[in-house]
């Protein structure tokens, strides 16, 4: 069946209300293409979205999906995957969703290494509330709520992931369609938690981290002789604050996903009409 699936099958009949030129269009296209290319179809895919501009993605894609509450998309995805190891799970959210209100869940989802993909649509701004600083905004980024800039260093999501024991860390750019799709695809194929931070520019409220800025400054790791399985090399890339990178930064070739660690491999939706066989053993334990 999968060979017949086209990426447009993952498109819903709702027209996106993102601003014209929003990076999220490209981000979503890459996600749909990656899902189709990896042999998935809408009926065996579950997309979880958070809140914010990025959160609308569940509406614009066609698959099983839940648009959750702010910051909690990862736990929802975790629950879906544990209950249904047979289903492809992709979680999408913004930088506020993932690194501010949901930062706690990010750390623990990374640690758990559940076999799913996490796409963060990072525009370094709060767009839907019309332009406030986000956890990845620059220290001097002026907004209505931070007139002199946040005066705090931005969160380094890759470093946070690495420190939490990540097995797959990548960075892509929504406008570099081919590379973006390729990187998401590698995250989907990864045996474990595939984390991709996507530079997904906000054309309305962020006049600093623009398409031009990323185009000019991005260094592609594929052209840099970078070995993603080399932890120290990955660490150097992640802690290098002078440059912006794209590509697979780190991949643990020995990654053992959660379901293998814990032996969670059953389709939990399938249960009998009455108590499970041998349930009476449970009563006997109380003698």
């Amino acid at each position: 069946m999968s060979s017949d699936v086209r990426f447009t099958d993952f498109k819903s009949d709702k027209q996106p209300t993102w601003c014209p030129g929003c990076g999220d269009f490209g981000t979503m296209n890459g996600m749909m293409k990656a899902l189709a290319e990896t042999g998935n179809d809408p009926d065996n895919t579950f997309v979880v979205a958070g809140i914010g501009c990025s959160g609308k993605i569940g509406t614009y894609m066609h698959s099983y999906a839940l648009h959750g509450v702010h910051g909690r998309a990862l736990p929802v995805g975790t629950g879906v995957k544990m209950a249904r190891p047979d289903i492809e799970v992709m979680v999408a959210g913004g930088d506020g969703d993932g690194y501010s209100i949901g930062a706690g869940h990010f750390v623990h989802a990374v640690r758990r290494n559940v076999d799913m993909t996490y796409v963060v649509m990072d525009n370094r701004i709060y767009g839907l509330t019309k332009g406030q600083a986000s956890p990845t905004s620059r220290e001097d980024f002026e907004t209505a709520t931070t007139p002199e800039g946040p005066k705090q260093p931005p969160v380094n999501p890759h470093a946070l992931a690495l420190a939490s024991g990540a097995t797959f860390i990548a960075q892509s750019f929504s406008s570099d369609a081919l590379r973006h799709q390729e990187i998401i695809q590698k995250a989907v194929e990864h045996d474990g938690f595939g984390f991709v931070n996507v530079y997904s520019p906000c054309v309305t409220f962020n006049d600093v981290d623009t398409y031009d800025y990323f185009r000019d400054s991005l260094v592609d790791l594929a052209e840099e002789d970078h070995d993603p399985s080399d932890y120290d090399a990955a660490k150097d890339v992640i802690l290098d604050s002078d440059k912006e990178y794209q590509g697979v930064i780190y991949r643990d070739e020995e990654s053992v996903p959660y379901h293998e660690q814990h032996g969670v491999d059953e389709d939990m939706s399938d249960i009998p009409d009455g108590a499970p066989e041998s349930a009476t053993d449970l009563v006997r334990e109380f003698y």
Partner: protein
Amino acid sequence: MAADFNWAVGGEAGDGIDSTGKIFAQALSRSGRHVFTSKDFASRIRGGYTAYKVRTSVDKVQSVVDRLDVLIALTPRTIEENLEELHEGSVIIYDGERTTMQNVEIPEGMIGIDVPLKRLAEEAGGAIMRNVVALGAACEVAEFPIENLDSALEKRFGDKGQKLVDNNKEAARAGRSYVAEEYDAEFEYDLETTDEDYVLLNGDEAIGMGAIAAGCRFYSGYPITPATDVMTYLTGRLERYGGHVVQAEDELSAINMALGAARGGARAMTATSGPGIDLMTETFGLVATSETPLVICNVMRSGPSTGMPTKQEQGDLNHMLYGGHGEVPRFVLAPTTVDECFWKTVEAFNLAEKYQLPVYLTADLSMAVTEQTFSPDAFDMDAVEVDRGFVVDDASVDEHLSESGGFKPHELTEDGVSPRAFPGTVDGAHMSTGLEHDEQGRRTEDTEMRVEQVDKRNRKVETAEDREDWSPREFGDADAENLVITWGSNEGALAEALDMLEADDIDIRVLSVPYVFPRPDLTEEIEAADETIVVECNETGQFANLIERDALVRVDRINKYDGVRFKADELAREIKATLETGTEATQ
């Protein structure tokens, strides 16, 4: 009713009080006696005062009373804490060689039994067994055959090797012999045994077992007193039945994981207590509006805020009924006995799936930590029914597609219940959201659709009210002029209080209500009574307020919020006093 016997072991947290008490309770249960236990405990790992209390009889026991017959006191404070319950002739077993117990004074009229617990334990193989020496001594005092204790010791230590079991048996016998030789006083107790088979379990365990019986496959939780035992019980056991337990990073995550599993088609549950319910309330509205079946177990403890984490209260009723912004339908089930915790858990899963909404399953601390004996037939697994409600498969999904071919998870139906398609169902792909949505789960702000979806969600409640049985349990004298209504774990104390009141020629009709929402309309019963009293463990009378609103009358109230459950004799006194004065709330 046959004479009951009240026993306790008390000391500091860290003294092994809990496991000592549990062994004795197990021994009594295995001897065919009924057991009802309670705990005085503090939220700390070491120090303080903690006690494990056992009430036992050959008849059913379902409450604690204000009486203590035999007390094993490891600290002087244990005696002080129980002075009111001890009476003339009560026996206090203690170790006079223990530094802190050397100058202990046995209150007048009570019998002090000084047993060198530590020394005898060391002789039997290790000081750690001193509590078991005390159990042996208690067996002698109560004329309880020590073989029953052996059986409980085997259960407790069996997997740690025969040597340890034998040492413990020897320690118990050392305690028994010491009392027999040094104190040949005639004690008034003679604990007879029967051939009955009983199981001994607490409310948390009954909830956990009920969840497995109901086909729950996914549990996510965050440890919190007094709900942790649900998680501890399920850990390892749920896996045996093809499920999985996850310890989440917080309650926000716990409920969202359970939500995800439920969207995946699993029967899922989380359990917590008040502070966790506060956090979970964030996601509660999403569960309800995305029409996801979910069982949220709230084992109530004393609040607000951190409150008294190890103390009893039934103070979360308003939160469960009204918590969260906006208006969202939910059910609230409140089992009233330990065995009912099992059945109401099964029912909660069925209701959640039949009506596709969150179900609060609420127990309270007293019931959660109370170990009680039941016939194994009380948990008849063959009687468990699983009803998954309206679920479509590959063949039937076509009947619920929109004109453009999209599945309708929020289809507008007559009874309000829409079809569910589990992921993997061909052509069933759909989304849902916390945003107001159309039949296909897509965001909408269309005024008509908004109203239709709100009405549809509420229609499910009307359908459930109509289709399901929400009756209260009734006992006592059906024709009595006095009506007492209660919910949650007070039922046992009330049942026993009834016998005591009957001795004073006071007849009572009791309605014990396990359904808070939807709940039975008790207007007729209240109108038929001269006097109605609502009994509950909170200050404001949250359930009484509902009853007054339902029946449009004023009721009398008995409220307790000192952190301790009702005792049968105490409750009998309170009811008598309230009937005499007919006044408003007493404390």
